[in-house]
């Protein structure tokens, strides 16, 4: 499984559309949100966490439609399905590589963006923590959407419509945690719930995605 993870990571770093581009997209989205609201420090601080969350979700979303599609088209997915490891494990490695090239860089850059929005330090810290525990769920649920829409020609839009509602609990909780911290309340319950969603997705998503892949590869 390490082999597949490393291959996807290497491909993402080597190709256009990979990690670097995804990170640029993350910054651009957040910046555009920053441009489009009134440059009032108080307002920016309130909008900031939401902007970072939306940018993370969109950066994860745009690279999802190639997650299985590229391997499907060039025959790699067949060989992956024939390999000794269960397909569920392959899904997990690919989702992990997707997270490592979208969610992880976004998490690492979140404090920087939050500072640009003048988000208070406590909220910045909570937001970063929320992304650290919550962003893997985006890649995992996204993998299910990508597997479901594998056989669809130009399925990118369909994928977004399917996946975006599944992202919403994670995004809502991230916003709740950041706002709680900004109001000097305890954000730990929201953070724990975020972690619970990630763990739940870790347990269920590989099976759902593998089931969908089997239907599509068949």
């Amino acid at each position, binding site marked *: 499984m390490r082999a597949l993870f490393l291959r996807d990571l290497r491909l993402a770093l080597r190709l256009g559309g990979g990690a670097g581009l995804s990170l640029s997209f993350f910054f651009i989205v957040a910046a555009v949100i920053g441009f489009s609201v009134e440059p009032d420090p108080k307002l920016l601080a309130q909008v900031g966490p939401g902007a970072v969350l939306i940018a993370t979700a969109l950066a994860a979303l745009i690279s999802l439609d190639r997650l299985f599609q590229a391997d499907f088209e060039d025959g790699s997915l067949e060989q992956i399905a024939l390999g000794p490891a269960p397909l569920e494990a392959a899904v997990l490695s690919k989702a992990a590589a997707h997270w490592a090239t979208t969610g992880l860089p976004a998490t690492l850059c979140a404090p920087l963006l939050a500072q640009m929005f003048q988000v208070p330090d406590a909220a910045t810290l909570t937001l970063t923590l929320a992304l650290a525990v919550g962003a893997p769920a985006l890649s995992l*649920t996204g993998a*299910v959407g990508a597997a*479901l*829409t594998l*056989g*669809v020609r130009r*399925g990118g839009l*369909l994928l977004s*419509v*399917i996946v*975006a*509602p*599944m992202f*919403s*609990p994670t995004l*809502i*909780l991230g*916003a*709740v945690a950041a*706002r*709680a911290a900004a*109001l000097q*309340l305890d954000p730990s*319950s*929201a953070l724990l*719930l975020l972690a619970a*969603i990630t763990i*739940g997705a870790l347990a*269920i*998503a590989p099976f*759902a995605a593998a*089931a*969908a892949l089997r*239907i*599509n590869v*068949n």
Partner: protein
Amino acid sequence: MAQNSTADDGSARPSIWRFANPHEFMRLTGRLLPWITPLAIVTLVVGLLWALLAELPPHPQGERVRIMFIHVPAAMMGINIYAMMIVASLIGLIRRHPVSHLAAKAAAPIGAVYMLAALVSGAFWGAPTWGAWWDFGDARLMAALILFFFYLGYIALWNAIEDPTSASELAAVLCLFGSIFAFLARYVSAFWNTLHQKTSLSAIDGKELVDDAIFVPLMVLFVANYLVFFVLLMISMRTEIRARRVQALRVAEG
């Protein structure tokens, strides 16, 4: 494709699964519909007229409270139809009954319209009552909207995949996996409320329901909407089975 082991010997082995066979299903619903359809229409008309004309107890919202008679059944149906789709998808995946998949497929547009009706009627109710058409702070509204999006995604996936067998199985996987997030969205949005200090829009719970003048027509409308849903579902499934049969005949003829 599942085997139809109980095609014509259904009477010998009385089992509910008999009706999972398209042929049996067509026969049964063909007999039921001429009776249930008028019943559904009559119940709906009676319920709506009652709701419109009944003398209501004095209420701070005045006549506006009548929106409830549309809003509450619609919201209830929107949620319950999704629950029905989960059950149908599970049966379809486990027992591989094509009619079960078709039931989920046929239910989705009906559920989506109910959900939309609930959202729109809710907005028309909320606008004069709280001065806002929409409130992102309210858990119910958020959950209803997200459920509506799930319906749209489900319908879109069915339409996007050409092979009916794969489409039914993939849509079932989406329905089951999505249901987890639909429920999550409900509870997570409730969480949002604990921070968002604002009047809750939930006006229908509480003492109004105790009053018979509201309770009785509401119950009639609940029953009417279930009947209407049943009729629409059956008609839609029958259409779908006929379409699939045309397709199967074309394939058989080459």
